[in-house]
């Protein structure tokens, strides 16, 4: 008989250390957690409180921040309406485009790919995920730019094609940049799928399509929702892709933030935009969790 292995670590390791006295146990735990706690507090919690405070402040005459309590910065948000509009349009559209390309790939990897190829193909998905987004976006700048595809098209007689600095180029860059992040969670949820359910569905006379819609798609929804919300949140803060592939024409919230913090130094207004961005991200995450809980009964899929 195979013994059940694995399971939560806490009981095992905890029990070992329990043999020392209680005080030593707690002291060691605190010691282990102290550096990470300090880091999280100083570089995550405090900075977040700082921009929250800044967002209700005023801009000092020389730039930077002046203490105040006003909602003027939030009331001023429509001044950057174009950036919000572009981001709120292209982030969901981009995430959806990623999903449409990613799902068949994840499905193939999890359910159809030959066993010995699966790990290699999966590694081929993971590698771009960890390679420099700047360099990968630059590759498309090179391809879409004047001396790339347009030059080739001119060679065969199609003149004056403009590809770079268009919303289409930004969308292409988005799909290219975030496709791996969409494939991975969908793959994980499809791989965990109990294959007997698919057989059962077929045995009970369901067509392949209704099996896919009623069983596969439904059970992989947590992965879809994790991928969609992660990609969408990262897109809300995207700066490189619209800057390099959209030229000055497609402005994102990320561009507005760089401008407000590094060029015009209007920190309170920038903070109000950042807080709004975080608020939208939280709404996206909660909505995604709700949808996957309602449809398939489980919550999100962890990536690692």
């Amino acid at each position, binding site marked *: 008989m195979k013994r059940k292995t694995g399971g939560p670590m806490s009981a095992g390791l905890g029990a070992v250390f329990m043999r020392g006295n209680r005080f030593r146990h707690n002291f060691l735990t605190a010691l282990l957690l102290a550096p990470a706690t300090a880091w999280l507090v100083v570089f*995550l919690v405090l900075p977040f409180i700082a921009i929250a405070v800044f967002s209700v402040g005023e801009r000092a005459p020389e730039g930077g921040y002046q203490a105040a309590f006003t909602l003027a910065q939030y009331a001023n948000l429509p001044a950057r309406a174009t950036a919000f509009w572009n981001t709120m349009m292209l982030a969901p559209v981009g995430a959806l485009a990623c999903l449409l390309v990613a799902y068949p790939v994840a499905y193939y990897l999890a359910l159809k790919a030959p066993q010995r190829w699966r790990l290699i193909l999966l590694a081929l998905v993971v590698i771009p995920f960890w390679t420099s987004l700047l360099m*990968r976006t630059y590759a498309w700048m*090179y391809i879409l730019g004047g001396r790339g595809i347009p030059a080739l098209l001119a060679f065969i007689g199609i003149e004056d094609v403009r590809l770079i600095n268009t919303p289409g180029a930004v969308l292409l860059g988005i799909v290219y940049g975030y496709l791996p992040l969409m494939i991975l969670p969908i793959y994980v949820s499809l791989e965990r799928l109990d294959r007997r359910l698919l057989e059962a569905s077929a045995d009970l006379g369901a067509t392949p399509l209704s099996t896919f819609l009623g069983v596969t798609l439904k059970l992989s929804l947590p992965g879809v929702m994790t991928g969609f919300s992660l990609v969408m949140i990262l897109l809300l803060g995207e700066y490189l892709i619209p800057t390099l592939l959209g030229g000055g024409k497609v402005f994102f919230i990320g561009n507005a933030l760089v401008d407000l913090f590094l060029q015009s130094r209007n920190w309170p207004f920038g903070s109000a935009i950042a807080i709004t961005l975080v608020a939208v991200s939280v709404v996206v995450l909660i909505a995604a969790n709700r949808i996957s809980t309602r449809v398939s009964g489980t919550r999100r899929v962890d990536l690692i």
Partner: protein
Amino acid sequence: MRAFVTAVFAFLYLPIALVVLFSFNAGRHASEFTGFSMQWYGTALSNPFLVEALKNSLFIATTSALLAAVCGTAAALGLARVGVRTRAVFDALIGAAIVVPGVVIGISTLVALVQLFGVLNPLLASIWPDDQPPRLSLGYGSIIAAHGLFSMALVTMIVGTRLASLDRNLVEASSDLYATPLTTFRSIVLPQIMPAVVAGFLLAFTFSFDDFIVAFFVAGAQTTLPIYVFASIRRGVTPEINAIATIVLVASVLLVVLAQWQLRQRKPAN
């Protein structure tokens, strides 16, 4: 479906391959490959600004990844020993550190550090014995700290996952056989989590080495390789950038492959 998947993989890799190919182009333009040449690598590596930026990036990536590996592993071990509530708070913070977009991490760290330095610098000046007190400012330290935040969260998650799948029978057996907690840790726990620690370090290094947006905000007067490359791209696409891009891409691919290989090592079968 196979055709579609093949096309997607081609889509993922062809642009990268093109950059690599044209980094060896003797001519200047993407529209024509005029012959094989290593000249752009020579140009890139004899550019003192670029070499300086590369050194900065290597230093920052190594330091932040080392700190992240140590603190993240310690945190993962600590989290295995705390109650459900503390754990939930930590998990939420770690999730936030990973999910919050780089732009927001960058600006909030910038704002907080500038305020903090505004308080600390006069304080340092007043207690310093002579007229030359050190001035805290943005630079290496702030980039390392900001990169380390994401990296530490990542290491904690990877090592935590490995700890959760650790065979607890071995741990119990070890203590039943009168091993001290330290011996059990050294001979049972550490060897099993080591691949995850190494993988976490490698991924943290890769993240820091590749990151542009966080460093862009908190770099102060310092330049990292991505910041330098971004600035030169805005001035115009040159074959020199293809050469740098190739070096960076090859380095990241090697590190990621190594990390993946480490993660697959001695994974308990279930």
